[in-house]
């Protein structure tokens, strides 16, 4: 399959890339890893007139901790996240997520920024970032601004990024004492989109839940933050009753569509089971387990 023709630019600085966005407006599309965009272009579901390839911008790929945040550069490949010992040891929920995105070959190209900016409700990072309360850094002609992840997704394949902005960094609050998280996904086979996925993050004080974040993958037109389930956990002891109640609420908050991967009831049931399992794993990790 051959994509429609397009003009191509590969700027070497962020400023050049933003200038090109200003020049071409909605005709332009950013190319990062290309693992979602190129298939869409081959199917002619996307036919941007101008491609701005940001792969040659040097300083957009990093994983580091600073000022109480884990910061991930937008061009960081999923395989670099998957292979990062900092992520594996300190942010296992992000390791869980990167390790189940597509397949190892796709992960060598695919980027964290692209996974979020593409805003496909079937993508995996959105649920995890919702659970973790991440922030998105968007850079445009006037400089950078920070967008709370809860305000980032505005519809299917749409975000609150302006036409002349580029997602440049993801910021995740460093874990406080007693925190733990996990991401679980059911897929028919490696490389398929999630039938359903659940990210859970908790902060414990002893056995009491101080705060909770729950994000859902591919069970609605947008990534879902299961706020009812989150609220139900706060102040409760981390026990089966609390977990089961939150899992039930998360299933109610999901809004899946029937497709080849399953019926609505099946997917809601998956959300319930995965939420309970992810919470148990998150609580176990918060208590020092793995």
């Amino acid at each position: 399959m051959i994509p429609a023709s397009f003009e191509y630019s590969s700027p070497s600085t962020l400023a050049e890339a933003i200038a090109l966005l200003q020049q071409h407006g909605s005709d332009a599309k950013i190319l990062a890893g290309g693992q979602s965009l190129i298939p869409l272009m081959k199917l002619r579901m996307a036919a941007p007139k101008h491609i701005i390839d940001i792969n040659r911008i040097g300083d957009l790929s990093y994983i580091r901790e600073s000022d109480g945040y884990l910061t991930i550069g937008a061009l960081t490949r999923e395989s670099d996240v998957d292979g990062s010992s900092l992520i594996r040891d300190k942010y296992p929920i992000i390791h869980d997520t990167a390790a189940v995105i597509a397949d190892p070959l796709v992960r060598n190209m695919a980027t964290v920024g692209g996974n979020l900016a593409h805003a496909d409700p079937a993508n995996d990072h959105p649920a995890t970032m919702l659970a973790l309360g991440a922030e998105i850094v968007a850079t445009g002609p006037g400089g950078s601004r920070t967008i709370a992840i809860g305000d980032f997704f505005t519809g299917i394949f749409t975000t609150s990024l302006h036409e002349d902005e580029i997602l440049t960094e993801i910021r995740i609050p460093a874990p406080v004492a007693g925190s733990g998280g996990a991401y679980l996904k059911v897929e028919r086979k490696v490389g398929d989109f999630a039938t359903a996925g659940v990210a859970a993050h908790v902060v414990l004080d002893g056995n009491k839940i101080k705060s909770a974040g729950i994000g859902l993958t591919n069970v609605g037109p947008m990534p879902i933050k299961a706020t009812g389930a989150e609220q139900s956990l706060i102040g409760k002891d981390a026990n089966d009753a609390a977990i089961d109640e939150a899992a039930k609420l998360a299933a109610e908050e999901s809004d899946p569509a029937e497709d080849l991967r399953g019926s609505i009831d099946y997917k809601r049931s998956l959300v319930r089971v995965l939420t309970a399992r992810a919470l148990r794993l998150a609580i176990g990790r918060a208590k020092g387990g793995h």
Partner: protein
Amino acid sequence: MKISVNVNGTAREADVEPRLLLVHFIREDLNMTGTHIGCDTTSCGACTVLLDGKPVKSCTVFAVMANGRDVMTVEGLEKDGKLDPIQDGFHQEHGLQCGFCTPGMMLTGFSLLKNNASPSEADIRWAISGNLCRCTGYVNIVKSIQHAAQAQKPAQ
């Protein structure tokens, strides 16, 4: 757009349309047909090549993205008439049936062994999870990669 791609150690120059996929550049501009086109939808891995040493699906990379970078195809495995241990492994362990997935499987296996000289069976199965064999010959593919790992171990 003029590009120069280092393919198997040789700079290859061409004037290409930006929409040209890397796999078409390799097969049709360079006439190197060892890289296969299977699903053409980022699923099967028949088109796997190494881009700067990492296995990627060349049906999902534009040739212009490889400008100035290193590409290794299956044709680059053999050196001076001698098979690479990964090729020998597939030969010895009958790691292919129809052979369509084999170039991709070998390049993914080659890349795995560069990073992990003694992979477990689980490591191997994980590494090739983006390469599909429609003959379902995975048992011998795993054995072939194990054979290559064994052959590359320094003598005790």
